[in-house]
Every structure is written in structure tokens, then in C-alpha cells.
């Protein structure tokens, strides 16, 4: 196969498209996809990677003008193929599982806080290994919006990928990332307000 420069790739894959370049790129994507998916897909690997490569090629041709040349063209193209494939695999894996199901049915032991009153009303309270989980539990219950709480529990407890949670919450991955980022910043501040300690200092109490 010819090695091409970035400029050659872009030129040959823009209108009028060079058939040889297209077929070479397809072959490259297939090799990459096969290697990265071989330990995740047991049956029909070839047929599945063909589909992913086809979808990826369409996406690449459509967005070729957005390639900024900051990486090798093949790296850029392959990242799109991987994204197409992995997004679809995550969707298939989680499509039949509802958010409700994931946040209401923990696999491990459910935590029952010892103190049901909100420790925020008692800021002088000293933090210890015994009550830190009550504090975090109460922060999750009282400092977050319902959507923030649902997203965080679905991801951290249910192991559901952020793009799948976003789909089920009728939003997109970026908006949900921002929502969760805001939630984490809020909790970080709340933890400091309630304990006088940073998250690092609190965590260190367990790692002694």
C-alpha cells in the first residue's frame, strides 16, 4: 500500500474521490477495527467490522474538511472508526436496561446512614472514618439536583457509560458531562464546608 502524506489523503478523498485511496483507507480501518475488537467480539467479527468501517468511512468523507492536520490523517480517521464502533457496542450492551432499573437495584449492599439528620446543620461535627460516609451520603441527597444524582449513581454505581446515560436522559454526552462536572464541583465545595477538609485529606484518612 502507498504511504500517503496528509495532504495526499485529503486531496484524494475530496471530490472527485480517488477509488484507490478510498479502498486503501477502508483496508486500514478494517485492520485497526479487527485488532481492537477481537477480544470484545466472539462471533461474526469480520461482518461486524465491515459494517463499522463502512459507517466510519461515510463519516470521515463527510467531515474531511474538519481535519486540521494536527495528527497523522490515518490516526484521525481511525479515531473516528473506533468512536463509531465503540459507541454502537455500548448502545447494544445497554439498550434494554433502564435508568430506573440501574439506580434502584444496586448489586452490592445498600448503605444506611446512621444519622438521618443533615450534618450540614451541625458544622462543628468532627469528621471520622465512622461518619464520613454519612456526610457523603447526605451531600448526595441534599446538595444535588435529581438529574445530577441520577446521572452520578447510574455511572458510578451502575457502571453505565456516560453516552448511554445521556441518551436515556434525553440529552447529549457533552451536556451531561457538564452537568456531572458541576455536581462534582458542588460536592467538592460542600465536603470542604462540612468537614473543613479537602477531598484529598478525607481520602487520606482511609489510606493510612
Amino acid at each position, binding site marked *: 500500500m502507498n504511504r500517503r502524506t496528509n495532504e495526499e489523503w485529503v486531496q484524494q478523498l475530496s471530490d472527485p474521490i480517488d477509488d484507490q485511496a478510498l479502498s486503501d483507507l477502508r483496508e486500514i480501518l478494517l485492520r485497526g477495527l479487527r485488532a481492537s475488537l477481537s477480544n470484545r467480539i466472539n462471533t461474526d467479527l469480520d461482518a461486524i467490522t465491515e459494517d463499522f468501517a463502512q459507517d466510519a468511512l461515510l463519516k470521515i468523507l463527510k467531515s474531511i474538511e474538519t481535519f486540521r492536520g494536527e495528527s497523522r490523517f490515518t490516526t484521525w480517521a481511525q479515531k473516528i472508526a473506533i468512536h463509531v464502533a465503540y459507541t454502537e457496542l455500548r448502545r447494544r450492551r445497554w439498550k434494554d436496561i433502564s435508568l430506573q432499573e440501574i439506580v434502584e437495584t444496586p448489586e*452490592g449492599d445498600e448503605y444506611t446512614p446512621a444519622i438521618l439528620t443533615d450534618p450540614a446543620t451541625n458544622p462543628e461535627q468532627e469528621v471520622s472514618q465512622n461518619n464520613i460516609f454519612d456526610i457523603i451520603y447526605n451531600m448526595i441527597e441534599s446538595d444535588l439536583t435529581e438529574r445530577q444524582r441520577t446521572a452520578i449513581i447510574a455511572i458510578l454505581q451502575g457502571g453505565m457509560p456516560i453516552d448511554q446515560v445521556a441518551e436515556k436522559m434525553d440529552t447529549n*454526552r457533552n451536556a451531561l458531562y457538564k452537568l456531572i462536572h458541576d455536581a462534582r464541583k458542588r*460536592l467538592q465545595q460542600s465536603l470542604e464546608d462540612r468537614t473543613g477538609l479537602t477531598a484529598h485529606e478525607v481520602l487520606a484518612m482511609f489510606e493510612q
Partner: protein
Amino acid sequence: MKIEITTLKKVLKSLTITEVEELTCSECFNEIDQYVDMLREGKSPADVMPLVKHHITLCPPCREEFEALLVALEAIDADLE
């Protein structure tokens, strides 16, 4: 809502790596090819793109795709040699 004790620990851990400025998934995706190329050329992309490094540490799907991309590129290179 039912919360497990391991979840409380995970929340606490996530707070230790929460930064004021973070990349969203799309912003990370936009830069990950450059990051990966630098990594494969033996450079230290984390020095130049610390926010990308941070995002893939924190975000499992983006980390998964980053790792898969490395495997894919290794395979392509091996074939072309």
C-alpha cells in the same frame, strides 16, 4: 435512590480529581489523535495536553476509545511494515 458504600467511596475519589476546568468528551475527542501520535512518537503529550490526560483518567468511555485506538494503530503499523 439506593446507594452502595462502594459508590460513596467512588464519589469521594472522583472529588479528589475534580478540577475547575475540565474538557468535555467532544473536546477530548478533538485532541485525542494528536495526543496519541505524540505518545507513539515517544513524546510526553500529558505535559502539553494535561486536560486530555485528565479527561481520559476520569471518563471511562473516552479512556476505552483511547486504549482501543492505540491497539488499532499498533496493528496497522505492524501490517504496513
